């Protein structure tokens, strides 16, 4: 009985994962990050990788909203920072446990998403981006004006930690990241037979008028995109507040709105894996060189230089570039194949004409 399931699992692995190099890399990567604490428990490395996992949710939520649904958001820190503040306030003033506050933060993210979506019903493209850019700045102004409740420049500190140890924190964040990524990946999957959000959102991105005239309720789907994105950004904001044990005005910084865009475009836009690649390559690299005392000043110079050089030669992002090199999509059945195959692994159609 057990052997039968084991064989089934092995067959799935051989046919579906080992046949496509991208999936093999993804599996290796997730196995690696799950077993990382067995290799090293250096506190700086663990901290950087926990934050990387947390920012991956954040970057992927930006990708969901702007890459897939085409609603350019330049103010994503509004989701992140406000939900971090919600989690912190619920924890400090109401005494909720971290799990409840993270849930509250996610609900808060959904509500902020609804507010963000209001201009999106009338605006599009860069105009929408610039209005959303305004939200975190207005929130930041409010935080400075009411320092009694928000802590002003100091922020709210002394929150409960997620768990009691660094390794457990790491596992909590990584597991939440993997499940969030899975949900977002499924929701944006164009070939999915279960939900049709993926194909609808991409239709809205490509041509909203056509989408609406073919009977799609674009308003509802846009609201859905904003609330889903807000939900996941809210989770990452709540996790951040409890992981750092402090929430300050820096969570609403404009720079934090631009960071998910930097990471996602570096990895590849409109692909959930692009944001994973972006965060784990760019963020981890930049933060790990900051272990050395002398390198901290050069952190953002490195970031900018890497970004410029990579994007000049791979404007689609590094993840998409690598995937194009090692994989080829079957023109008939749209399945991924190893790049050196002549015919499709499933339908035997010739891959190159």
């Amino acid at each position: 009985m057990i052997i039968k399931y084991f064989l089934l699992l092995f067959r799935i692995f051989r046919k579906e994962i080992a046949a496509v190099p991208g999936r093999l890399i993804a599996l290796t990567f997730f196995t690696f990050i799950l077993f990382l604490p067995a290799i090293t428990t250096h506190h700086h490395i663990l901290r950087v990788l926990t934050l990387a996992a947390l920012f991956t949710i954040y970057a992927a939520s930006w990708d969901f909203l702007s890459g897939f649904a085409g609603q350019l958001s330049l103010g994503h820190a509004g989701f992140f920072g406000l939900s971090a503040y919600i989690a912190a306030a619920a924890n400090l003033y109401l005494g909720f446990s971290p799990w409840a506050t993270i849930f509250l933060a996610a609900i808060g993210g959904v509500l902020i998403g609804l507010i963000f979506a209001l201009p999106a019903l009338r605006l599009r493209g860069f105009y929408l981006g610039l209005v959303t850019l305004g939200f975190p700045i207005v929130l930041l102004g409010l935080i400075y004006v009411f320092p009694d409740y928000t802590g002003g420049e100091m922020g709210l500190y002394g929150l409960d930690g997620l768990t009691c140890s660094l390794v457990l924190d790491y596992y909590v964040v990584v597991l939440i990241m993997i499940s969030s990524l899975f949900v977002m990946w499924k929701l944006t999957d164009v070939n999915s037979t279960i939900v049709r959000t993926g194909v609808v959102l991409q239709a809205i991105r490509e041509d909203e008028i056509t989408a609406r005239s073919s009977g799609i309720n674009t308003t509802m789907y846009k609201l859905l995109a904003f609330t889903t994105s807000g939900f996941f950004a809210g989770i990452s904001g709540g996790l951040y507040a409890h992981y750092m044990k402090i929430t300050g005005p820096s969570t609403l910084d404009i720079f934090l709105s631009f960071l998910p865009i930097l990471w996602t475009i570096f990895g590849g836009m409109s692909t959930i894996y692009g944001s994973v690649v972006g965060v784990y390559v760019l963020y981890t690299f930049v933060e790990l060189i900051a272990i050395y005392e002398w390198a901290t000043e050069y952190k953002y110079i490195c970031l900018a230089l890497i970004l410029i050089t990579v994007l000049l030669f791979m404007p689609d992002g590094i993840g998409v570039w690598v995937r194009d090199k090692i994989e080829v999509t079957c023109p008939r059945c749209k399945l991924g194949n190893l790049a050196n195959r002549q015919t499709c692994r499933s339908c035997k159609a010739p891959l190159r004409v």
Partner: protein
Amino acid sequence: MLRMILITGFLNGGVFAILAIGFSLVFGAAKILNLSHTAIYMATAFILFTAVNWFHHHVLGVVILAIPISGLLAMFLYMLLIDRVKQHQTVVMIISLAVAILFQDVGLLIFGGNYRSISNYIPGYMEVMGIRVLYQYFVSIAAVFLVVIATCLMLYRTTLGKAIRAVSDDMEAATLVGINVGSVCLMAMGLSGVLAGIAAVVAAPLTPVYPLMWMHILLTVLAAVVLGGLGSIKGSIIGSFILGFSESCVVFLVPNGAFLKGAVAILVMMVILILKPEGLFGVVFEEERL
């Protein structure tokens, strides 16, 4: 109080207007959102700071030299980086943002994060209706108005200006009548760099100079440009003055107003955009309408 509001409002509005015209030109002609625009402004202010400290007897020469340097810097950025990835709009945005971060951090490395100031080009002050006004304010405000008028004349009277406007109206039609779109985009970028340089020259003696200054002013300029309608020169000028005056009103009239300085500009922009999505003077094309 009212006079202070008027003076700072005119100066801020004018500086925003010069920056916004440059931004708007590049957005109109090359269709790129150049986030490094105010970083060029910041870089010019620092070049000016260094040069004024070295050659403090030849301030006028330094000032005149700083302006073409910033134009060349912008053209260099365009040729080296932006031209190659022009088709990918978001990539251009991110690359220009990376350039801005690079400038900021190099500035932080060289000069540190302190607030610096440049001494007034013309020392002394004058009493106008009971308050002391530095001569520098008069010089700067006069320069701002001259530059705005000169730029408008250039755009509406000269061949280059007409070419830039033609490219921003319809790139394909401009190609058909024999305009070299690539070089016009390059010239627009150079012109925007020159304008950023002029803004730096005008504003540097009256505002603190520090490597992080590009972020706040970038937001205000973006707000002003969007307020007037992206790509519309007249709109950007009027939007900048609206924001300049509303900022100075908030700073002088509201308690704790300095914290709200950035937020107010953005709030004005958000309200106007939600009421009138194409901006005050924006043109709505058929395909852009929802």
